[in-house]
């Protein structure tokens, strides 16, 4: 679906998704949350789906974006664009630092390092209560405004206008990241995922590439965090906890690794399903656990691959795959 399509196709498709969501969902707020987590899942997919790096610390970037935007808007209220830029910078810098240390190790040690950094971030944010609000979270976050000098000022005060703003940013980020994965950089990332030793041997400085993709992932995830905090006007400490990392990871895998559209669908399905399940049964996480097991076991390519297969089956197209059962 996404292999090297021209850019306007992606623009169109994501715009359609953003337009349809609030129509089919009961509230703009849920739709906003979906787009926000879609961005976070995209950030996660860059690492896991394209580069093969399983980061268990995405919540750190998400939380950092939320705090950065929250603190900036509370203390200086510099407006929309500077706030987003600041959070991109925060996320990227933090991710570079985490990446710099974490990529020195591979496999499960890498996973544990990302987790350790996120946990550190969590407890630091908890202890830095005068700045972050600690356990109570950062309250009274101000929604940044967008001013066109002498013409008008957008306040994004209503749920609808804030959704529109989120959609615009979502579409831009999606298209940019789709571009990235189709770019020469993206091709190197895929090569690293496949065979890191060979990528280094043919002349790619793998470490640098990994740090670069961390920076992109951190930046995108931080933007998601920023929108989360400005949506709620509140930056909870739970943004940085393990569960948030898990949720982001789950959305990413549910949708399908190596497909940005997959991440978007992962976010939609996860959030809608959890909302419905939580209303039905307090022990809904049992069902969530089962879903996780089933998806991972029987749809390892996630929903995007499953739908693609279903579509090609419907079309009756006989894609020849010669005994490829590896």
């Amino acid at each position: 679906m996404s292999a090297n399509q021209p850019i306007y196709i992606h623009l169109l498709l994501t715009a359609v998704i953003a337009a349809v969501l609030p129509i089919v969902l009961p509230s703009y707020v849920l739709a906003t949350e979906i787009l926000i987590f879609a961005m976070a899942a995209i950030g996660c997919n860059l690492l896991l789906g394209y580069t093969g790096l399983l980061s268990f610390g995405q919540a750190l970037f998400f939380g950092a974006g939320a705090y950065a935007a929250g603190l900036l808007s509370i203390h200086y209220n510099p407006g929309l664009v500077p706030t987003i830029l600041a959070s991109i910078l925060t996320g990227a810098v933090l991710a570079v630092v985490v990446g710099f240390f974490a990529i020195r190790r591979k496999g499960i040690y890498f996973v544990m390092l990302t987790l350790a950094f996120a946990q550190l971030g969590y407890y630091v944010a908890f202890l830095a209560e005068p700045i972050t609000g600690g356990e109570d979270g950062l309250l009274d976050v101000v929604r940044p405004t967008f001013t066109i000098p002498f013409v008008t000022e957008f306040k994004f005060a209503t749920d609808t206008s804030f959704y529109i703003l989120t959609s615009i940013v979502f579409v831009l980020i999606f298209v940019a990241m789709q571009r990235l994965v189709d770019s020469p950089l993206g091709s190197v990332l895929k090569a690293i995922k496949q065979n890191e030793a060979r990528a280094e041997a043919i002349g790619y400085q793998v470490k640098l590439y990994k740090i670069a993709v961390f920076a992109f992932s951190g930046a995108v995830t931080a933007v998601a965090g920023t929108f989360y905090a400005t949506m709620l006007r509140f930056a909870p400490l739970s943004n940085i906890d393990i569960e948030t990392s898990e949720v982001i990871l789950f959305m990413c895998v549910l949708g399908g690794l190596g497909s940005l559209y997959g991440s978007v669908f992962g976010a939609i399905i996860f959030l809608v399903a959890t909302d419905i399940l939580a209303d039905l049964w307090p022990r809904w996480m049992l069902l969530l656990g089962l879903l996780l097991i089933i998806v991972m076991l029987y749809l390892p390519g996630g929903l995007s691959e499953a739908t693609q297969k279903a579509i090609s089956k419907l079309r009756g197209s006989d894609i020849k795959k010669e005994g490829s059962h590896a």
Partner: protein
Amino acid sequence: ADDELTINVVASMSGAFAQFGEEAEKGARLAIETAGTAGGMKLKLNLIDTESNAGKAARKVKSKLGEEGPGLYLGSTLSSTALAVGAEIHSAGGFYINGSGADEITGKKCNASMFRWSAPTYGAVNASLRPVLDAHPEIKSAYTVTPQYVFGEAMLSNTKAVLEERGLTLAGNSYHSLKDKEFSGIIAQAQAANPDLLVLLNFSSQAAASIQQAINFGLKDRMKILLVWSSGLDTMQSLGAEVSEGIYFGAQYWHEEEAPANLELVKLTKDKLGEAPTYPMAHYYQMTKLIIDAANELGTGDPAKIKAHISGKSYEGITGTESVSAENNQVEKNFYLLLGKAEGDKADEYDFADVVAKAKYFQSAADTGCKLN
């Protein structure tokens, strides 16, 4: 529909605080089912699961407000959730009452839409520590164990004030972090300080873990122990009588209270659920009932009218006479000091403790830093 009145109940049904949510829902449901209607409208309960996550809670409440406009909301024992949810509801013009530990709700972050049923840390500390000190004049020094966040700090400063006023020394204090469950290092510190009283200022599962470990270390024989912010019955149930015997517990509610409204509640829970009311159950019941009564008296469920009606109101509640301060929307009610009793002395399976004292301690709105808007 016009002939329906929805009461939105915010509770942690899933996640780490599920034990509160489950009881809380029972309480709210009991009140609603018993009343059936209010102000001529059919009552409807809408349960909002916070998933024990303040962000989720805020988003779900925000969604609801977006879909249905300002409404009636109650619940949340967690400070962070209550604060975030309260801000959302206020900006949408709804009504909100909760039983959380955050003093800011009726203090610095107070607003006209937000009420608090639970006594503040000031009340909890004074109503529990003073009677303990009165009962044990031999106590000369105390050691505190404090969770390091806003709630814990508030508990600690109130404790210090009482100790200072009584001329007692604070032998030491250990902070601990969120989610810590291992207290042996801290208990060793407390041992070294050798105080006459150990004051635990944490709550929920951390409180249970720290008490259990203190008792393993034999501290019960060496000093008095007071858990200021216990959850009452369910704390004792999860500790067991053997552990809770001889320990002092502060509590917002105790089911053996003789107030008529409470007798009614106890009868209800016994008939309908076959158990005694716990604190989460009871206070959700009370908060729901407060709304129902207001709607009945007003004949409407309009949040603005309900706010105005409840503010400054005095009524017979489950802890006796309760009154709502018009200055900061704080419900002024009794806070209990309980003393755990031995397994053999229990009259029934819920009779874990005797009430040693009950009292109301409240600061003026000015002292809490609240300016209603």
